[in-house]
């Protein structure tokens, strides 16, 4: 007997809920995850007009503790964690010494000596190694991924639904964007953060792995009359794309730097030091050869990840990193890297849709911004 080449897929504690709800399950970063329940567009619209509930328990949760935890975290990320107060979170990139992106993260300051880092599931092993190594001799490191479930409640009705989940949950409406606190939601002990990946208002709720099913059931029941629906990875992708939120592995990876990816705003060059700073100084000193831009496909076609981008002479000049129909914007949209000369708003170019040159135009992003 030989060992199977691919390890068996893992299940979140909500797996049975997804299957019972009729979700189509797909392998995703080592987990069996719901890609859709009723349909991507239906779930997408629910999040834009009411609310959606997402199981994102596959994400990685890393904890750094101790007197020097703050310095270690700040050293590993491009954004400035030193300005955070307790209960505040920060979106950031983490780079390597070459200044390219290891992962995009949210770091949470629970206390000066206690930090939570949420990383992409696809980067969990890598980021665990990065943080664990950096913590060595300086602070304590703990991988909380297996013990932590994460449920995202997103949409204009998110706080109305939370208000039904107990008095403590009702008070969460005062939480500011990118702030978090411990709370009891539907009798479950949680940490609730006003963050998300949909472009809508809402929260992401951390709880113990085995508490997630009870929380999931109660939120769905409370939210149903308000239009809450479970939403899968498919809708998560169209929602984040319309809001121009980067997807690691598509728009950003270890071959891209945050400046060209449009993430310059999370790179704080005035920090004394951080991994990748020297390389990013060089990137910033020179004109950017290419940039990640948003575009609309004006011809008949849908851009997809990996499709070549061509100039109007037909020469291959770039690559599409994300693309799909945008259900709310009602257009076929995408993100892609283009040479700087072709990145001005209104610039026309072609997306090579499997051998056919389909016209597209660079547009302002985000494609969708909530009112």
């Amino acid at each position, binding site marked *: 007997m030989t060992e199977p080449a691919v390890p068996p897929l893992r299940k979140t504690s909500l797996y049975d809920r997804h299957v019972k709800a009729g979700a189509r399950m797909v392998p995703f970063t080592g987990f069996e995850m719901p*890609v*859709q329940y009723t*349909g991507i*567009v*239906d779930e997408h619209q629910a999040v834009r007009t009411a609310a959606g509930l997402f199981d994102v328990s596959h994400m990685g949760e890393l904890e750094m503790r101790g007197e020097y935890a703050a310095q270690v975290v700040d050293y590993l990320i491009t954004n400035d964690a030193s300005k955070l107060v307790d209960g505040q979170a920060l979106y950031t990139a983490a780079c390597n010494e070459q200044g390219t992106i290891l992962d995009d993260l949210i770091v949470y300051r629970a206390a000066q000596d206690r930090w939570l880092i949420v990383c992409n599931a696809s980067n969990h092993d890598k980021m665990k190694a990065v943080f664990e190594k950096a913590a060595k001799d300086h602070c304590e490191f703990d991988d909380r991924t297996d013990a932590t479930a994460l449920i995202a409640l997103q949409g204009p009705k998110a706080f109305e639904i939370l208000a039904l989940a107990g008095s403590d949950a009702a008070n969460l409406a005062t939480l500011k964007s990118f702030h978090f606190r411990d709370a009891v939601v539907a009798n479950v002990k949680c940490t609730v953060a006003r963050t998300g990946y949909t472009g809508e208002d809402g929260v992401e709720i951390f709880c113990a792995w085995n508490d997630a099913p009870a929380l999931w059931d109660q939120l769905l029941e409370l939210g149903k009359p308000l239009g809450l629906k479970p939403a899968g990875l*498919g809708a998560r*992708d169209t929602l984040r794309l319309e809001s121009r939120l980067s997807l690691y592995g598509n728009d950003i990876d270890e071959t891209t730097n945050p400046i060209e990816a449009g993430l310059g705003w999370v790179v704080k060059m005035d920090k004394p030091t951080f991994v990748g700073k020297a390389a990013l100084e060089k990137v910033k000193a020179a004109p950017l050869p290419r940039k990640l831009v948003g575009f609309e496909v004006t011809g008949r*076609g*849908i851009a997809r990840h990996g499709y070549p981008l061509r100039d109007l002479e037909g020469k291959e000049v770039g690559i599409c990193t994300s693309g799909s129909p945008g259900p709310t914007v009602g257009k076929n949209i995408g993100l892609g890297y283009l040479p700087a000369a072709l990145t001005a708003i209104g610039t026309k170019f072609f997306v090579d849709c*499997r051998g056919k040159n389909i016209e597209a135009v660079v547009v302002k992003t985000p494609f969708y911004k909530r009112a």
Partner: protein
Amino acid sequence: MNIPAGLKYTKDHEWTNASGNRVTVGITAFAVEQLGDITLVNLDVKVGDEVTAGKAFGTIESVKTLSDLFAPVSGKVVEINKELDSKPELVNEDCYGKGWMVILEASDAASTNQLLDEAAYAEHVKNAAH
């Protein structure tokens, strides 16, 4: 899973409805379910073009994915469902009716006989779903 009797099916999840040489072609409910919300039906052929059995003659795209459309039989395109240009969702709503894609004039009227009947296709779907 809706698999109407009287139609003939391909392993690529297309249905055919033959009346003499005229063969109407669409995609099955199983294909629609796999694709999800259909947003674009792109036919690479026009009326009068010849198609070859098993060769792609267009693509169908959903929010998430893209799939080739294969000609179930060889023949000439005699009609195209123009309505799908502006209303691709008809394929989701009524894949065996208003969501039809093309009508072919089969070069061999007997060619659909070689395709799967509903029982054989149901068996094929059962295996494909696992």
